[in-house]
Each structure stands twice: as structure tokens, then as C-alpha cells.
């Protein structure tokens, strides 16, 4: 029996997460907890960043005890599978070389797979890997995107100059005119280093193949199981889609890195098919660093034209974006359409032009990492506004205020192809400034400077295109995938509800929040709603979780299905209550006749009636469920203001936080506790990028920051206490007013912190520093690097 309906609305309340108990007790199962008796796959990676492969000798490895099989790229080729991981976004002139799951002719970065050993246990598999003998002919490597396009080194023969695409957006002539007319032009050259996503759970796959039925099941660390299914079916393995089941069990963080189809799960599944049984693989952390798609890797020249009162007239940006050795699925979309389109930030900038040259390099593939494209674009704009304000001797906050898009201008069409849905930018900015006591901090800064202490305050505004998003528009721009999401809402005869949705959780708490959405639509208790995600056999179709889309698009799909279910139930209610449908009102789970409140029936009773089918309207099919493919009419546009106060120690270069304030507006909040958690985590990653994180390669293409020893992740004792607040500006076109919150704080935090540190260093004549702002970088910059 169903429980009693909630008295108050479950939408918007901080319901505790149903995910937690299993995770807290160790009962919850991640991919490597599956198939405990399976054989283990170990994958050999290239020793060099760039080399031709002369020979791979696996004979010694094959002879080892416990080894079941050793395979190379030649074996994969011979099996006749399609063997080509594709990019999912085409751009004009894009060069798309074949991306094999194991290299055959040439290795192009140190993560390229060369051979796979299947053995009875992990230890035997890795022992045998050491016995695979590869003869290489080494080639020179190129690692920086700006150098790659000038280099004699060629990563792919199809792109002799290493240019994968040359993209532009905006009106170049209008920008030229704006620059001529403006009083002042500020410029900055900046780099956004590579970020390694560092989900704490390494990527993994466990595959089981039944030769008698040809059914292949792959449990894996996936943000989008249906995407993995269609790609493994059509692009790498050629396994029939209807006999391929992808399951994402608990997934331990993703931040973008688990969106993509990597060679590893294809190799694992291919091995399972070869051996006709079960095998599993999990990346070591070293392999994660070498193979999980990195983020960012931009080298940019930016110019901003302003009048002397701070009014912005135009923005010109040219970026070399590193794509790594192969094109991952959103590698092309991220530095083009997700980047150039957001350069207007929260400002009314009449003319913007952006050119992006995407370059192949002998490095780990680069793709979307939390904030993808939008983080890089906002960083450029929010950094150059600070640079320009200082040159004009204006307060950077006032320059921002002068140019904010006012609330009455929405929907607002930018100079770079987006139509912002809604925004109350000044309100959020003022809230942040009030919380951080901006005027007071400026006074304290001046006083402390007299005593040789260097305080800095940094403010950054941001707007984010979230949701990924209208299918037709995306298709016109080159997307090879839709932007909808699928959601099923199904009443059971007893009155409880199952929801199936195509998003896939990696810690966001979808099973809680999407149950809240369904419960609110149906007026049933949230505990009576179960949410199923992450299994292609349980969910009809799905696009997955990335781009802050699960709330607005997944939630939108669930809400739409909930509304369809309510409308069908309304028809049955009208029939049973002998009233016109127009006279039947629905409120908190109960239908009643207008003006006759005692003539009522609950939606749970109607569910039972719908499945009995004895007493429903003629022509109506029994059952009470609905499926929606919700395709948004636009992106949603979360926004906000982040502000940081830091102190720099001039003797050590150390950056210490005094305050960190974040005011985020993600529209309606389904669960404020979870929203705040997303903001906290986003801030931590944004601060990490600003102060400590960078993946560095040496000239040979070896990843120097190849472990957690060399790559400095933020830890509990290196991060400040966050003070968060929010404003609520609903998205006018989203069914539940939600805008999404997964990436916002990562986008806002990085420029806020860099602006704060550079502000602190103003007395030393520093106008810009490239990330990460380590003690050494800051210390060196003081005194103009003279010491």
C-alpha cells in the first residue's frame, strides 16, 4: 500500500539522500566490486609519446603461469570490428583520423594502448605485461597547441600542420570598428593549463559475454551508458545494440572524465567476447593520469576595447586549444561552441569575435572537464575586465556593474549566438559584495599595505550555458547526438511509482532529487518513488549526465512524464466522479470536483483503477505510465558572483584565504542541501585550478606530473571555509524552472581567486599571472622576477 501523501511540497526541501546508507556502510557496489571471480585485464601503454611501432613480441608473456591470453592491435584489426572511436561534434573542415582501440602502426601519446593481457588475477596480468616486448622507432614529440601548429612534428598524417580545426564565431568587422571607436584597448596573453579530473574512483570496466545468446553486459564507470552502448555497437566493437547492456553502477566521481568512450572498456569487452566469459579491468592511478581525458589546455590572446568610463565596446579573442593525440567525443565542441559562445559573460558587449585553432599534440586527449568551455571563456572575460579596470584606474567591480545586462533586457541575445533566458545579475553581485564587505576589505587592504601586508580581493561574475540542449540547434552546429533526455514515470497498481531516466549519477544524488521532482508532480510521498538510472536494460534511452543537464533536462523529462500521467489520471477521475475534465482539479495527489470537495479520489486509487481497466473511459488504454523525450527549447543560464579575499606572503609567495563568498543562482532548487554541496565541490575544483593543479609534459611528451605526488590536488587543510548564498531566478522555459548547478562554482571560483591574487600583487606591478599560482610562481613574480 502507498503511504500518505506529504503535507508540504517535497520540491525545494533538503531531503536526505537515499544514496547515502549504502555508500556509508560499504554495501554499495562500484564497478570493481562486480564480477569478483572474473579474469583480470591489464593494458600495456606506450613508453613514448611519439614513435612508430616496429614489433610487438608477446610470446614470453603468453607463456607465463596464469595467463589466459595476450592480444595486440593486430588481433583487434583481424577480428574485423569497426575499431574507430569517433568524435561526436563535427566542425567545418575538421580532420578526423582513425582512433583505434589499440595502436597498430604508431603511438601518439604515452597513454596509447599497445597490448592487453588477460590473466587469472591482477598480479599475474601485470607480471605478464612486463614481458611484452615492444620495439619502437622514436619520433620527436610536440606538446603545446601553439607550438604544434608551427612544428615539423606531425601527429597525424591527415593533418600535416597538426590543425584539426580552425573555428571562428562573431562579427570580425564589427569588432574592428568597435576597437577603432573605443578610448582604450586592454590586452592579456594567458594560458589555462591542463587539468587532470581526478575522480577518486579510477575508470573501470567489467564485461560478461554469453556466446550462446550473444548477449554482452558491461558494467562500467559511465556518465552516459546509452552513449557508451551506441558507440560500442556502431563505432568500436560492432556488437548488436539490442544484445549489448551497459550498466553504470555506483560511479565514484566523473567531472567529465567518464563521459567518453575510451579504448579500455572496448578492449575489456572485446576480450570477454574472445574468451567467451567474464573479465574485468581497472585503471591504476598512473594509467588514469595518462589516459583520462584532461581538461582546458588553452593558450589565448585577448583584447578588450572600452571607453574611459569603463563601457565595453568589443572583445577579440584568439585561442590555440590543445586536443591531445586523438579526438575524444566533445573535444571539438568544448573549445569551440562551448567556449566562444560564453565570452559575453554577464555583460552587454556589442561586438565579439573569437578564433580557435584546435591542435593535435602528443599528449593525453583533452575533452570536457567540469565547466567545459564555459569555464575557459568566463576566465578570459573576467580576467581581462580586471586588467582593463586597472589600466583605466577604475574599480573592477564598477566596470562590471557598468556593463551588466539589466533584468529588463531578457531574453538577451549576445554577440556570440546565445539567447540568455533570464538573469538578475546585479542582485547576485550586490549580495556577494555585501557578504564580503567589499568596501571594508578595500579599506583594510590599504591600511595593511602600509604595514607591508598584501591583501587582495577578487570578484568574478559568470553565466553558464547549461543543459546541452536543443537537439535541432545542436544538430545544425555539428552535433552528432541529440540534446533531449528521456524519462519514464510509471505508477504501480498499489500506488507506488517507478521513475526511469537517462541521466547517470556519479555522486550528484539523482535518485533523491529526481524522486522529489516526480513526487511533487504526482502528489505522492517521496519515499513511494523509486528512481532507476544507469542501466540500458532498465531505461529506454538517455543522453546522460554532463553540462549541468541532469536537473534541468533530466528533471524536465521526469516532470513532463509526471504531467502526462496526471492528465491521464484526470480523465479517469472525471469518468469516475461523473464530472467534466475541466471541472476536476488536482491538488497534492487528489482529484476533486470544483465546488464539491467531498467528490474526490486519490491518484493512487486511480492507478489501481487504471490497471484494473474495468471502469475507465471508453477508447482509453489501461495502465498509468508515460514516457517523455524532453527536448529543451534553449539552454538554461545559471549565473552568479564569487568573491575571494586572500593574503600573499611576499617572503614565501604563499596565498592564504581570508574569506570565500559564493552567490549562485541556479533557478529553482530541487534540494538546497544538494545544491550547496555542488557549489562547495565546484569551488574546491576551481580553487585547485587557480592555485595548484596543472598537468605538465616535458619536451619528450612525458607526463611529468604523472602521479598524485606531482599533481597537487586540494586537500582538507588547503581549502578555506566557504560562505554560500543564493538568489532564485527561475528559467522561464524549463518545466520546473531549474537551471542546473553542477558546474557553476568551478566556473566562478577560478577567476575570482586569480583576480584576488593579482590584486594582492598590485604594489609589485603584477598585472597578470598564469595559473597555477603556486608559491613559487607568486614569489617569482614579486619584484618582477628579479630575485
Amino acid at each position: 500500500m502507498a503511504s500518505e501523501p506529504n503535507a508540504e511540497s517535497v520540491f525545494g526541501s533538503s531531503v536526505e539522500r537515499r544514496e547515502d546508507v549504502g555508500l556509508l556502510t560499504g554495501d554499495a557496489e562500484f564497478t570493481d566490486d562486480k564480477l569478483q571471480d572474473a579474469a583480470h585485464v591489464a593494458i600495456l601503454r606506450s613508453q613514448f609519446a611519439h614513435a612508430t611501432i616496429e614489433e610487438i613480441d608477446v610470446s614470453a608473456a603468453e607463456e607465463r603461469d596464469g595467463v589466459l591470453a595476450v592480444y595486440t592491435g593486430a588481433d583487434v584489426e583481424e577480428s574485423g570490428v569497426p575499431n574507430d572511436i569517433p568524435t561526436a561534434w563535427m566542425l567545418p573542415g575538421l580532420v578526423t583520423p582513425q582512433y583505434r582501440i589499440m595502436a597498430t602502426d604508431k603511438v601518439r601519446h604515452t597513454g596509447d594502448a599497445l597490448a592487453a593481457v588477460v590473466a587469472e588475477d591482477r598480479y599475474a596480468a601485470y607480471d605478464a605485461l612486463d614481458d611484452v616486448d615492444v620495439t619502437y622507432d622514436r619520433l620527436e614529440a610536440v606538446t603545446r597547441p601553439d607550438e604544434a601548429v608551427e612544428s615539423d612534428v606531425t601527429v597525424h598524417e591527415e593533418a600535416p600542420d597538426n590543425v584539426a580545426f580552425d573555428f571562428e564565431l562573431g562579427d570580425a568587422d564589427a569588432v574592428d570598428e568597435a576597437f577603432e571607436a573605443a578610448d582604450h584597448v586592454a590586452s592579456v596573453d594567458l594560458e589555462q593549463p591542463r587539468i587532470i579530473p581526478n575522480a577518486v574512483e579510477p575508470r573501470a570496466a567489467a564485461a560478461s559475454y554469453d556466446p550462446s545468446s550473444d548477449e554482452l553486459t558491461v558494467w562500467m564507470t559511465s556518465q552516459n551508458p546509452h552513449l557508451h552502448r551506441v558507440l560500442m555497437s556502431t563505432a568500436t566493437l560492432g556488437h548488436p545494440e539490442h544484445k549489448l547492456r551497459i550498466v553504470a553502477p555506483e560511479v565514484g566521481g566523473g567531472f567529465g572524465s567518464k563521459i567518453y568512450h575510451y579504448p579500455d572498456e572496448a578492449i575489456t569487452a572485446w576480450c570477454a567476447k574472445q574468451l567467451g566469459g567474464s573479465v574485468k579491468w581497472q585503471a591504476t592511478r598512473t594509467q588514469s593520469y595518462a589516459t583520462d581525458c584532461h581538461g582546458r589546455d588553452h593558450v589565448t590572446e585577448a583584447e578588450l576595447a572600452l571607453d574611459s568610463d569603463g563601457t565595453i565596446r568589443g572583445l577579440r579573442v584568439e585561442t590555440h586549444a590543445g586536443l591531445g593525440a586523438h579526438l575524444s567525443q566533445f573535444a571539438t565542441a568544448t573549445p569551440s561552441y562551448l567556449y566562444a559562445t560564453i565570452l559575453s559573460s554577464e555583460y552587454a558587449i556589442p561586438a565579439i569575435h573569437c578564433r580557435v585553432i584546435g591542435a593535435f599534440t602528443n599528449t593525453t586527449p583533452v575533452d570536457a572537464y567540469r565547466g567545459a568551455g564555459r569555464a575557459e571563456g568566463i576566465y578570459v572575460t573576467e580576467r581581462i575586465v580586471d586588467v582593463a579596470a586597472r589600466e583605466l584606474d577604475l574599480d573592477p567591480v564598477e566596470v562590471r556593474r557598468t556593463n551588466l545586462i539589466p533584468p529588463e533586457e531578457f531574453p538577451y541575445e549576445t554577440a556570440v549566438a546565445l539567447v540568455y533566458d533570464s538573469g538578475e545579475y546585479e542582485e547576485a553581485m550586490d549580495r556577494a559584495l555585501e557578504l564580503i564587505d567589499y568596501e571594508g576589505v578595500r579599506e583594510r587592504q590599504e591600511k595593511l599595505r602600509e604595514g607591508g601586508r598584501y591583501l587582495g580581493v577578487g570578484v568574478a561574475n559568470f553565466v553558464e550555458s547549461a543543459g546541452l540542449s536543443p537537439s535541432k540547434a545542436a544538430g545544425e552546429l555539428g552535433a552528432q547526438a541529440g540534446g533531449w533526455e528521456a524519462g519514464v514515470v510509471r505508477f504501480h497498481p498499489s500506488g507506488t511509482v517507478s521513475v526511469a531516466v537517462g541521466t547517470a549519477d556519479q555522486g550528484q544524488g539523482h535518485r533523491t532529487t529526481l524522486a522529489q521532482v516526480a513526487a511533487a508532480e504526482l502528489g505522492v510521498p517521496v519515499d513511494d518513488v523509486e528512481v532507476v538510472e544507469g542501466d540500458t536494460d532498465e531505461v529506454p534511452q538517455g543522453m546522460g549526465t554532463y553540462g549541468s543537464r541532469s536537473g534541468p533536462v533530466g528533471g524536465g523529462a521526469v516532470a513532463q512524464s509526471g504531467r502526462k500521467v496526471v492528465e491521464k489520471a484526470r480523465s479517469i477521475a472525471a469518468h469516475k466522479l461523473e464530472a467534466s475534465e475541466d471541472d476536476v482539479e488536482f491538488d497534492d495527489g487528489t482529484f476533486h470536483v470544483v465546488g464539491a470537495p467531498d467528490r474526490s479520489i486519490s491518484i493512487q486509487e486511480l492507478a489501481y483503477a487504471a490497471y484494473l481497466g474495468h471502469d475507465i473511459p471508453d477508447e482509453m488504454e489501461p495502465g498509468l505510465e508515460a514516457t517523455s523525450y524532453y527536448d529543451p527549447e534553449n539552454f538554461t543560464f545559471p549565473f552568479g558572483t564569487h568573491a575571494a579575499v586572500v593574503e600573499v606572503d611576499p617572503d614565501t609567495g604563499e596565498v592564504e584565504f581570508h574569506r570565500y563568498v559564493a552567490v549562485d543562482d541556479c533557478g529553482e532548487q530541487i534540494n538546497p542541501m544538494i545544491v550547496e554541496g555542488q557549489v562547495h565541490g565546484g569551488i574546491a575544483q576551481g580553487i585547485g585550478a587557480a592555485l595548484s593543479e596543472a598537468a605538465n609534459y616535458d619536451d619528450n611528451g612525458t607526463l611529468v606530473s604523472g602521479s598524485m605526488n606531482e599533481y597537487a590536488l586540494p586537500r582538507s587543510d588547503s581549502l578555506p571555509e566557504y560562505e554560500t548564498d543564493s538568489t532564485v531566478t527561475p528559467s522561464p522555459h524549463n518545466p520546473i524552472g531549474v537551471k542546473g548547478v553542477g558546474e557553476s562554482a568551478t566556473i566562478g571560483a577560478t577567476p575570482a581567486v586569480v583576480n584576488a591574487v593579482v590584486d594582492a600583487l598590485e604594489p609589485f606591478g603584477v598585472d597578470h599571472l598564469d595559473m597555477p599560482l603556486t608559491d613559487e610562481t607568486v614569489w617569482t613574480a614579486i619584484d618582477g622576477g628579479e630575485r
Partner: protein
Amino acid sequence: MTTDTHEITLTVNGTTRELRVEPRTLLIHALRDELGYTGPKVGCETTLCGACTVHVDGKPVKSCTMLAVQADGADVTTVEGLGEADELHPLQTAFQEEHGLQCGYCTPGMLLTALSLLEDEPDPTRAEIREALEGNLCRCTGYQNIVDAVETAAARMNAAEGAD
């Protein structure tokens, strides 16, 4: 390839188990692959992330860099021994209430490190909590809610202690 194996005894969460392991077998792999305690996780194999943290004879240990033979005869506590779904440990309850976990992969190790802190220092400051947890990586939460959770649990455990 090592053919020698050793018979060892581990008492895991109060249950004594005998097993044969290679000299090189890591404690985390003995627990997960041989004995089926999949609560502790492998995150980095280099002592840097802390997802594999368990208690060995009452002390927190990163089980990815301890050999199983080194734990021969020891009492081992994994997250499975902390509390049951219907009877959570105060730390587990506080982590849920304070939203101190998102993906949950670091959580088993985080809980055992926090437990060790509270055993040594029942009333830690926030700075002490942050310092105690610096060897356990979390990429999701930004740590603040974890610190809140440990503070909440400490207060509750102290109140319960006082009531005894």
C-alpha cells in the same frame, strides 16, 4: 612470479579468517579479492588518496601499501564493521545529515580516519579535523561538509559518553 604462499590469519570486523597469500599481496587486495570486503576502495595504490584506509589493531592504515603478511594475526576493521544500515555509527549518521559525501568512493576511508581522530581527540577543532583528514582525498565535497559531519559526530559521541 612468486610461487611461495603464506598462510595468514586476519580477524576482520570480529570474524577470524584464514587465507593463503603471496608475500607481495597487498592488504587491500587480500581484503577485497580474497575475503570479499569490498567496502575499502583502491584509488591510487600509492598511499596518497586514502580510499583504502582501514584500522589494523586500532590504528588507521592505508591498506594499499601494507602487505597482507604484515597484518598476520591482526584485528582489522573495515567500513563494513563500523555500523549496519539499521544501526549506523554516529559518524555515518552525521555524514548523511551534513551531506558529507557525494559519490561515496572516498567515504569508507574518510570514516575510518575520522574515527581514529575521535578516538585520539574526542573534541577536535575544525583545524584539527582538517589536519587529520589531509591524507584522505575527496574530489566531490570540497571537504567543508565532511568537517561539519565530524564535528557533529564528535558532539553527539561526547554527549552520549557524558550520559553514560
